[in-house]
């Protein structure tokens, strides 16, 4: 049963245990033909385990895999017809680059001329023609990695599993290879599952992202979903929310989901993600790009008061705080700055303004960019209830319309943006300023 021209590949409650340790638990995912899925998460969260389960390299402890309604997890690895780029490359040390790349074609007993032509083409794609007759031991790490990529793309497998295939390349080559992978994906319509640490890579390549943590799915959704509406602070952490603080909820607005937080000598307004009530400990986060530095002229004016929405009834725009510049790094187009706010809380921000270390300044934290997450949440259910989901929003690009889970894909739990109807815990959350966030 070789995977060719399938419609959906479905993982139902897939899990794997090593000894007493559960490396992966309850992974529900429905992959459409031609989709590009990125698996994202910190080291040791079970990404490679998930790929190995899909490839059939380790037996499942729990769950099942289905292809177009047929049970697939009992099919042996060599019969699945999935290609895989291994995290440790796993190149055959006794074969040359050419021999490595040709291996799979030889196994298919293709004509010699075709093997030679396709091998050559794949080696050209990864820019290794001048190294083609070397043994893997004579190559640099990045060159070996490219051989590993060439070795699996040459087979044009129906499903391509890539375990951090670009981790060892320099920045320029990584961008080139990323484009190659994307192009190949589009040209051949290869379904791809791609493991990466790099959120930028994941956002730019994938149709849908799966964020894992400790073997559990944190969130599944489109890049836009995850970028604008991370479900937990762990996801936010991965999505570039470099500033994360632990604070306490002081009070919350009757309407909308603005909360005022207090702690560490700070008092600030934020948008609640999920149900929060006064006294809860939250993790609040904001991206460095979203912090606004007030122009120097405004320094003399008094600081805007947090919680002013309670009196004025107007939606607040942001909390303004006094800060002291600590570290300034020039990054080319702008400055990456670290300032101190409140009781020595470090805040990272980016600004074109030339700030000087040691100087006082004033920063504004826009409320709708400042997301407050419950400290611990059950994973799987999205707190962004009422917010437009990827299905509703998928009007623009054709890419998006095909990524949602198709009708009748089994339980469907955990697919799409994960906004389950049963998890509406947040009254009146429709007032979330989502429309602004989208325009980011």
């Amino acid at each position, binding site marked *: 049963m070789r995977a060719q021209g399938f419609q959906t590949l479905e993982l139902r409650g897939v899990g794997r245990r090593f000894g007493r340790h559960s490396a992966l638990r309850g992974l529900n995912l429905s992959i459409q033909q031609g989709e590009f899925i990125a698996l994202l998460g910190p080291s040791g969260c079970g990404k490679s385990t998930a790929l190995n389960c899909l*490839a059939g390299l380790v037996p499942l402890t729990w769950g099942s895999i289905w292809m177009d309604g047929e049970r697939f997890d009992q099919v042996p690895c060599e019969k699945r*017809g999935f290609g895989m780029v291994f995290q440790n490359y796993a190149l055959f040390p*006794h074969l040359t680059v050419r021999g490595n790349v040709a*291996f799979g074609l030889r196994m298919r007993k293709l004509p010699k001329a075709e093997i030679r032509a396709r091998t050559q083409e794949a080696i050209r794609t990864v820019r290794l023609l001048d190294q083609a007759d070397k*043994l893997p031991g004579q190559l640099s790490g990045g060159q070996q990695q490219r051989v590993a990529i060439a070795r*699996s793309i040459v087979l044009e497998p129906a499903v391509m599993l890539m375990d951090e295939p670009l981790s060892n390349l320099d920045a320029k080559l990584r961008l080139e290879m990323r484009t190659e992978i994307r192009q190949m994906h589009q040209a051949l319509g290869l379904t791809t599952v791609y493991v990466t640490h790099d959120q930028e890579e994941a956002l730019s390549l994938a149709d849908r992202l799966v964020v894992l943590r400790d073997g559990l799915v944190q969130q599944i959704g489109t890049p836009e979903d995850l970028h604008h509406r991370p479900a937990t602070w762990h996801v936010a952490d991965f999505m570039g929310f470099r500033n994360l603080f632990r604070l306490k909820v002081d009070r919350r607005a009757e309407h909308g989901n603005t909360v005022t937080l207090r702690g560490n000598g700070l008092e600030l307004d934020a948008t609640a993600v999920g149900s929060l009530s006064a006294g809860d400990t939250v993790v609040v986060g904001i991206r460095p790009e979203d912090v606004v530095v007030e122009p120097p002229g405004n320094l003399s004016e008094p600081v805007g008061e947090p919680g002013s929405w309670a009196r004025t009834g107007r939606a607040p725009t942001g909390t303004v705080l006094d800060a002291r510049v600590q570290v300034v790094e020039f990054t080319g187009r702008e400055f990456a700055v670290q300032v101190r706010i409140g009781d020595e809380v470090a805040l990272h921000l980016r600004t074109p303004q030339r700030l000087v270390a040691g100087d006082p300044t004033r920063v504004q934290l826009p409320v709708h960019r400042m997301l407050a997450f419950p400290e611990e949440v059950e994973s799987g259910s999205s707190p962004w209830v009422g917010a437009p989901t990827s299905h509703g929003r998928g009007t623009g690009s054709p890419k998006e319309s095909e990524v949602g889970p198709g009708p009748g894909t089994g339980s469907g739990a955990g697919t799409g943006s994960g906004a389950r109807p049963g998890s509406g815990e947040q009254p009146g959350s429709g007032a979330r300023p989502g429309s602004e966030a989208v325009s980011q």
Partner: protein
Amino acid sequence: MSVSTPVGSAVPEHEGAGGWRHRLAERGIDRQLWLLAPAVVFVVLLFLYPFFYGLQLSFQPNEGGPFSDYDRFFSDAYQRDTIGTTLKLSLPAALFNVLAAVPLAYRMRGRFRGKRLVTTVLVVPITLGTVLTAEGLLNYLGPAGWFNRILMDLHLVHEPVTLIHNYWGVFFSLVITGFPFAFLLILSYLSGIDPSLERAAATMGAGWWQRFRRITLPLLTPGLATTFCLTFVLAFSVFPSAILVGNPAGSTRVISIAAYQAAYEQYDYPYASAIAMVMGLVELAVIALVLLWRTTLFKGSTGGKG
């Protein structure tokens, strides 16, 4: 050379001493080499000294010129044939041990419950020693032993098969003592091969036979050559079982018996030394052939963790 380079001339006084020390270190020669001194002394005293003593003794025969003992050995067909007899025993035995150990070790390369038990059971014959094995064989394979009784009860044969006091008795004993050795060596060579290589081959559509044939076997072959050499050397110097379960006067009169007789029945030490030297030369020749063949194979790292 480096003296003429601008960098080198900037520090002229350190150039000389630092230069050659650095060059030696690049070839792996530095002060840490002194740590090898005890081992070198040990090898010289325990191995090289007896060897050279025997070598010079073999050139001082009781009568005749320096090579007359060698001459005696090769001109006497009864003595000369011991080389062939020994090779006929040790080469097939070593080959059998290696070839039989490969599939078993291949099956057992992964981790599974009870692996340690199986390994222990297989190692026991090594620890038992040749004499105990030979006695067991005498009882088991003898005319009234279990093996023949089972064959006769099954009416497969009408009279007992002769399996001891001939070639086969010694062959079995060489297998019993040599096989576990070969198995353990090959198992460790196999665990040195990165298991993800076979997995990668599987994702490229290779079935188990192709994975073995195209990936594991080529990476294992250098190890097989080494294992063959070691079990061959063990089998070539067979002595107790050739006497106990063999036919020491005829079909299993191996070369070590000839050397023993020269030394302890005729008390002709130079002649015994000469025979021992011939024995060593034959072993060296076989090993050299095998290793020569090995150099034509892949010899890089097998990417394993072992």
